[in-house]
Every structure is written in structure tokens, then in C-alpha cells.
């Protein structure tokens, strides 16, 4: 089988989902990396649930770090024109109220109905629900960026999530290290495969049956 995409490349693919003028919230991990790949000529307004709208660049040196300027992932931000600060109640008014156009989160499991599990692995210490649950319920469009399988190569896209849900039926698109899959009313639709990967190979690592898009493409990266 071909190589899987690395995190940066997945982040690049995620960033293709950004449309001009969108308000976007990025979860910790791969989602956050995608802010480095804003498509040329597009202006995106990033929201962070700890009370910031309109961030962009990150601090690149120790000197630039300002403990009053971080995002929810703990990254240090840099002031930029258009930014606004607000408190947590206001921030989640934005999130719960449907004002976030696009949210990208990591995932532990996604079901064929678009259920998401991403906060708790049974048997471990209680996980961190954080802001993910409100985001999953509130965002207009939810993209999950995750590896296609667990470390021991078990599918993470399942008939039904075995881990506790973050939200039922919330996922619109799954971007993995081998494929891009849309959640539709008729089930999961395979739209893109990573370079070198066939639909059959993706299916073999996916529990539910995938429908194949008529215009199935190789991810252009």
C-alpha cells in the first residue's frame, strides 16, 4: 500500500474546505495546523472559544509570546487588524447560536451516520470534553481530521461508535490520511483517495460500506 499522508499534508487538505469570508474554529492538533494553509486570496476569520475572533499568525519566537494572547489550543497568537476579544459566555453564544460556518475537530471514531466520538476513551482517566461538544452541536459545518485507523490499524470509521459520543449526526466531512469521505443521508460517500490509494484499499480499512463518488478523485495536494 502507498504511504499515508502526514499531518501537514492532511492539514493542507483540510484547508481546501475554507471558503472566502468564512468564520472557522479549529480544534487542537491537525485542525490547528490547517491555519497555515489558507488558500491564496481567501480571507478567513478564525474564532477561538477562549474569546478571540480574527486571529491568524502565530508567535514564532519566545519574545513574541504574550500570555494574554493564546488560542484554545494553547498556541501564542499575534495581534492582527480586525481582532476582537470577548468572554466565554459570548464565545459560546457564537458557537451554540450557529454563527461558526466551519469547525474542524480531531476524532477518535466517526459512525456512518456522522456520529462523532472524540473526548473519552473508556477505562482511561476522564477525558476532556472542553469546547468540542458545543462545537459539534453548534457549527454549521463540521469536518473531522483524523488518521483513518488506530495505531494497530483498526478502523475508526465504524457502523456505530463504541466510545461515548460527542454529538450524534454532526459530522459533514471526514479528512483522513488516506481519504476524504462525505457523510450523506444515504451513508458515507468516498470522494477522494490519497495518492496511490485505491477505493478498495480505503474500504478495507473502513467498517461501513462506502459509496463511491461518480467523480472519485485523487486528493490534489
Amino acid at each position, binding site marked *: 500500500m502507498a504511504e499515508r499522508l502526514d499531518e501537514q499534508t492532511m492539514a493542507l487538505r483540510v484547508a481546501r474546505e475554507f471558503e472566502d469570508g468564512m468564520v472557522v474554529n479549529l480544534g487542537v492538533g491537525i485542525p490547528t495546523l490547517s491555519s497555515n494553509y489558507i488558500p491564496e486570496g*481567501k480571507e478567513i476569520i478564525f474564532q477561538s472559544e477562549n474569546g478571540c475572533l480574527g486571529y491568524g499568525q502565530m508567535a514564532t519566537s519566545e519574545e513574541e509570546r504574550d500570555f494574554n494572547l493564546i488560542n484554545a489550543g494553547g498556541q501564542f497568537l499575534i495581534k492582527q*487588524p*480586525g481582532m*476582537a476579544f470577548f468572554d466565554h459566555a*459570548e464565545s*459560546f453564544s*457564537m458557537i451554540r*447560536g450557529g454563527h461558526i460556518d466551519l469547525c474542524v475537530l480531531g476524532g477518535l471514531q466517526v459512525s456512518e451516520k456522522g456520529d462523532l466520538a472524540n473526548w473519552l476513551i473508556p477505562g482511561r482517566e476522564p477525558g476532556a470534553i472542553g469546547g468540542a461538544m458545543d462545537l459539534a452541536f453548534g457549527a454549521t459545518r463540521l469536518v473531522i481530521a483524523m488518521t483513518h485507523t488506530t495505531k494497530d490499524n483498526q478502523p475508526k470509521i465504524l457502523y456505530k461508535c463504541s466510545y461515548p459520543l460527542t454529538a450524534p449526526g454532526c459530522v459533514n466531512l471526514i479528512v483522513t490520511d488516506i481519504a476524504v469521505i462525505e457523510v450523506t443521508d444515504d451513508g458515507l460517500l468516498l470522494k477522494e483517495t490519497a495518492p496511490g490509494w485505491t477505493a478498495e484499499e480505503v474500504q478495507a480499512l473502513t467498517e461501513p460500506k462506502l459509496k463511491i463518488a461518480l467523480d472519485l478523485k485523487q486528493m490534489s495536494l
Partner: protein
Amino acid sequence: MSINKLVGSFDEAVADVFDGAIILIGGFGPANGSPSYLIRALERQGAKNLTLVGNSPGHGRRAPGAAPPAIRRGPPNYDNGGILIQNNQVIKAICAFPGHSRPGMESDFHKQLAEGIMSLEMVPQGTLAERIRANKAGIPAFFTPTGVGTAIGEGKETRIIDGKEYVLEYAIKADFALVRAHKADRWGNLVYQGTSRNFNGAMAGAATVTIAEVDEMVELGDLNPEGIATPSIYVNRVTSRQDSKGE
């Protein structure tokens, strides 16, 4: 493309207001918080069967020939939602302050109410503000003490929580919000002036489409990020008395 929410004219900004729409209109009394230019554009646009939501439906314009009040009562270029009532565009008002007829200023709202053309849903001012905010915040309903044991609470679901009685109130699902602010940038960040913020600040973001009317546009970055009263996410369109056409 860079984001630019500034709309070229007031008329363009309200062009898609549809018959039967529920419209939040900011302002409080005759203060400088009424989106007057947008209201007049909506009068020209002519959408019918509107529901107006705001502190007051507004008196509209004085009858022709009526003497102006002894004390100048409003800022320059002022109008309120009452002109839409006078133009027969409104079927319902959801408000806290219906106002009264007064000499030289008969209330067309009360006239149309008596004639059965319009209806009134009277809401205590705080409940009104919270029902508006609830829609912005994705809260479909909440309990409040206000109204228990009064005509306002009659027929509403009540519940005792920790020994105190509350009524259940629902979010107002509005289609458009017309708000008046002082300055905006191209993203739609807004700042207000003094008590002209009033319902405007609560309404921005509380409708499917929020349209702001401001005194002036400023460069992105000119507004202090600590003091932006309405973050850009809540604003869909901006009109400017300096930069948008219309009157």
C-alpha cells in the same frame, strides 16, 4: 478577495426582506439609536405583513401640519419603525412600550390595533432583551421570574425551581435585525456611542441576517479589539451614512 461587508446602498441592504418577515429594530426612545436610513429604505422597499420586534413600535412621522414639539425630541434624520406601520407594512408588534397617542401625534399603531389590522404581543423589556439574546445564543427557551402571577405570565408554562416560581419564555426567531452603531470596519466589527447601544447591541447577531447602519467606516484594525461591542461574526451587512447611497 478580502472580506467587505459594506453595502453600496441602503436600498440594496434591505432588498431581500420578504413579506411576513420578523424584523428586529434597535433603538430606545428618540435617542440616536434608531437605524433610520434602513427603516426608510424598508419603507421604499415595501415588504408587507411584517412583524416588528423592538422596545417600541414607534410613532412614525407627525401628521402633516402638526406643530413640532416644543423641545426638539430627536436627533437629525431620525425615523423609527412607526413609518412602516403608517405605510401599512406591519401586522404585528412585539414590544415593551407601545406608546400612547398624544396631541398632534396620534398613534397609528393604536389605531390599527383597535381596527384589528395589527396585533400586539406585549413583553416586559428584560424578557424581550433576553428572548432576543437567546436566539443569538442558540438557547430556544429559558425560565425567568418576570411575569409570574401577572397577566404576562398567564397561559405560560410555569415551574418552581429551588422554591421560587418562574415562567418559560421562548427565543424570538427573527429573520432580519436592523441595528444602528457608530463605527464599523469592513469585517463588520461594531462600536456604539453611549446609551445608543441599547437594543442594538442585543439584536446584532440575533437574526438570520443582521444589517448595521453606522456613521462611518474605519480601517480594519482601527477599532480597539478590547472594546468592540459587537464582534464581526454577528454582522452580515454594513451600511454607512457616509459611504452608502440611498438618500
